[in-house]
């Protein structure tokens, strides 16, 4: 080795990177909880954290290290995953307690314990699958690729930087046009041809969705094909065969809309959830040899590294196993202390079934996000709550508490794997990323739950809140937050209390998903199931991206895809995320100042 100038360290898992990531993560978690309660959807933190990290680390502090910024965005987004996990589930319990005061005394300690257990377990369960998903299956993780493209932009040259910015500007323009209602959310082509709603032909106008389709290329086609089969073949068959008959008295004009709604909510969506479960289970079984092989090689590598006095590439199986056991014990304790009605046996059952479901749901979400960038979190949370509801004999408190853990865990799985994909592309050490996210996994749940409780009571005038006792909601001002996701889960729990669970579709779909997994294309069942679970406009627009990417590759070759299309598509994902975040902050700010809504 020779060098003509002084050698400085190459920061990766540094105090500066971790601190910056933690600060960003805490701010994002608090603000995204608020935004999600107000608008009904959360935002991923990786892209925003990477850009802010770029400015702070490279721009302000002059720290030139791509891998350090990767750690910063890993930490920030890891902390932020708790916001969507908590907002989707816990407010439902709070809202249910309005009509059922017995639910209002749920214990805070077990709640926080359960949330941290979920956060911890999500990470330790998905890490052993890094090799399978990132290295062997080579899942695309479009947002992970977008963040990597962003991190690598200083070395990619001006032309690629311009392409990235071009994609981002186009995405920003498109997002603003939709937000200002100049363009509709869905471009309804079918309406022009008077197609009935059960034979839809609409494209979801989202640069990020289209960009994810571009990045996935041919690999995303089963997803688009699944949607096409569902809505252009199965849906018309169902209508023509008379499988969705309307009420005899229903006005004629309302029938097609009602039928489309029934086909989606009562037929395809629950069947899609079942297929996701069956596909993921079969995937676990078929990938078992590779995972055990990977675990053995991890152990061997760790042993070799110990002997050579170096650090291994990944966290050791002992650390992962120990953390998993700790998380299961934490889940057991939270279940046991969640309610007086939960006995020792039930708590053990909850911990075991909860952990198993959490692992499976985590794999489903990681695979779905890896292939399409879309997460079926809400459907999986519903199954988690359903399972716990039946195990506990209808104990809503215990069911939601474990639901919180599952939701956070599944979000963690997707986020960790996406960050590891980014890490692979920029050459980070997986161990550093895993360690950072593992050690700080307790922060997000505490911040998210704390902010949620603040917003629930919110006693002051002009203070935003969502609880019935919050001054904003008592006075019916614009500061009363809608909490739409929690309302949806509340509706689901009320449906469960009246035994409305689509067990037939879950079972039938699971077998179908298992059978599909025999086909020699990895993850095909998850992709087809996800297509049935999602609105068709999203699937179709995504498929349009796949076809455009395939066409461009055919005409201009593979190098064009790598050099031009990838930065452009990455720019589209980054541009929409940033524009939407700015939009939400401005909208929320103007509302707080009394000018909004």
């Amino acid at each position: 080795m020779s060098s003509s100038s002084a050698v400085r360290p190459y920061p990766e898992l540094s105090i500066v990177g971790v601190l910056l990531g933690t600060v960003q993560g805490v701010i994002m978690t608090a603000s995204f909880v608020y935004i999600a309660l107000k608008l009904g959807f959360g935002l991923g933190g990786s892209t925003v954290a990477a850009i802010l990290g770029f400015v702070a680390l490279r721009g302000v502090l002059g720290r030139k290290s791509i891998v350090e910024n990767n750690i910063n965005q890993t930490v920030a987004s890891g902390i932020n995953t708790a916001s969507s996990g908590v907002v989707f589930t816990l407010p439902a319990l709070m809202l249910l307690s309005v009509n059922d005061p017995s639910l209002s005394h749920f214990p805070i300690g077990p709640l926080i314990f359960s949330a941290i257990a979920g956060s911890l377990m999500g990470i330790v369960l998905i890490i052993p699958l890094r090799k399978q998903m990132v290295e062997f299956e080579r899942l695309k993780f479009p947002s992970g690729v977008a963040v990597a493209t962003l991190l690598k932009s200083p070395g990619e040259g001006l032309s690629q930087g311009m392409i990235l910015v071009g994609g981002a500007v186009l995405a920003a323009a498109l997002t603003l046009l939709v937000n200002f209602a100049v363009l509709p959310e869905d471009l309804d082509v079918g309406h022009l041809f008077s197609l009935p709603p059960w034979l839809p032909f609409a494209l979801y106008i989202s640069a990020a969705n289209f960009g994810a389709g571009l990045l996935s290329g041919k690999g995303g086609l089963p997803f688009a094909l699944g949607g096409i089969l569902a809505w252009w073949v199965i849906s018309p068959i169902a209508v023509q065969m008379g499988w969705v008959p309307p009420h005899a008295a229903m006005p004629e004009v309302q029938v097609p809309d009602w039928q489309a709604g029934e086909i989606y909510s009562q037929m395809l969506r629950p069947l899609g959830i079942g297929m996701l479960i069956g596909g993921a289970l079969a995937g676990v079984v078929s990938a078992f040899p590779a995972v055990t092989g990977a675990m053995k090689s991890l152990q061997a590598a760790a042993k070799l590294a110990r002997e050579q006095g170096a650090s291994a590439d990944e966290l050791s199986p002992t650390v992962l196993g120990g953390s998993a056991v700790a998380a299961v014990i934490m889940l057991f304790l939270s279940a046991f202390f969640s309610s007086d009605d939960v006995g020792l046996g039930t708590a053990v059952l909850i911990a075991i079934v909860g952990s198993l479901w959490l692992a499976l749901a985590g794999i489903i979400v990681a695979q779905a996000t890896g292939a399409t960038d879309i997460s079926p979190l809400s459907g999986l949370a519903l199954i988690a709550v359903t399972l716990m509801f039946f195990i506990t004999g209808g104990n809503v408190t215990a069911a939601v508490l474990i639901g919180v853990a599952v939701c956070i865990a599944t979000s963690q799985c997707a986020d960790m794997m996406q960050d590891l994909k980014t890490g692979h592309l920029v050459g980070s050490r997986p161990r550093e990323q895993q360690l950072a996210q593992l050690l700080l996994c307790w922060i997000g749940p505490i911040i998210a739950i704390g902010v949620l409780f603040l917003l629930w009571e919110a006693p002051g005038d002009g203070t935003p809140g969502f609880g019935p006792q919050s001054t904003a909601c008592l006075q019916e001002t614009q500061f009363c937050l809608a909490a739409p996701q929690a309302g949806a889960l509340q509706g689901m729990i009320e449906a469960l209390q009246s035994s409305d669970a689509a067990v037939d579709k879950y079972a039938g779909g699971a077998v179908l998903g298992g059978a599909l997994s025999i086909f020699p294309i990895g993850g095909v069942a998850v992709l087809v199931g996800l297509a049935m679970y999602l609105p068709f406009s999203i699937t179709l627009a995504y498929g349009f991206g796949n076809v455009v990417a395939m066409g461009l590759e055919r005409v201009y070759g593979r190098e064009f895809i790598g050099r031009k299309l990838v930065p452009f598509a990455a720019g589209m994902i980054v541009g929409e995320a940033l524009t939407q975040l700015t939009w939400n902050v401005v909208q929320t700010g103007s509302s707080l100042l009394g000018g909004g809504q």
Partner: protein
Amino acid sequence: MKGYAGLLLLLLGIVVAASFGSRNGERHIAYRQASAKVGAGNAVMGLLDEGRALNETLKSEGVDLGALSMEQHLALIESDVRLQTQVQKTTEAIDDLRKWGMQDGDSPQMFVHAAQIERDRIGLPGPRERLSAWFQTAGVGWLVGVVLIVCGALLARLQEREDNAGGAAGTAGRVDFRGTMAETLRRLADIRASIQDLPMDADAASARHAIDQLGDDVLTPLVEGRGQLVARHGLAAFAEYFGPFSAGERNVNRAWSALTDGHSVVARESLDAAVVAFEAAQASFEAVEARG
């Protein structure tokens, strides 16, 4: 041929199994129909609530609708857009309820109450009943679809096995792991030599370009053709050598990042680590091949 037949069977199977699989039992359908009727009534009730709230708002603005004559009332509706919209929406919704069968003289409350009674009389089937009703209604069709899927998937697997055994022209041996590793190590040696004396913070655009070329020309084609390796060796054996291969690839990416960041020392260390990993992959591949 088997591949196309398999794909066709698979698609047909998905359509048949998912169509039948998504069917609902009769009682469930009847319950949903009755729920739609309740929903229509509830929509009108919601509009009436909105109307009452608007009434209160008008009162707070000094307008008491109850104290107005019919002419004044109509004139107010003409002049107030909020009232106009509310009256129009409510009238249309009540017309809808008439189409649903609400009798003249019945109130929306009575309509909703009757619809709720109809819905509750049907009752939602419990999980066990729902499962058995679904199987009775759709079980055979669903099963046929599942069988078609399995047959299609097995045919596709057979085709894949033949392709990888050299049965189909032009596909066998397309991925050359040995050759790829040799070429990778050769190019890495060149890149390593080119940055041997590179000082810290020096521009290394040519070395980065060489790494990009290595990825595009050599590593990516192997990654994209890895399915052939899985088919040839099985997933467990594939993992033995593809794991080290991926570690090598990651270290090459790390070298690229370090060169971008002007850290030539880490770039050299990363390239050295990449060489070790690729050599380990090569050795594991040979061991797997030797095992047959």
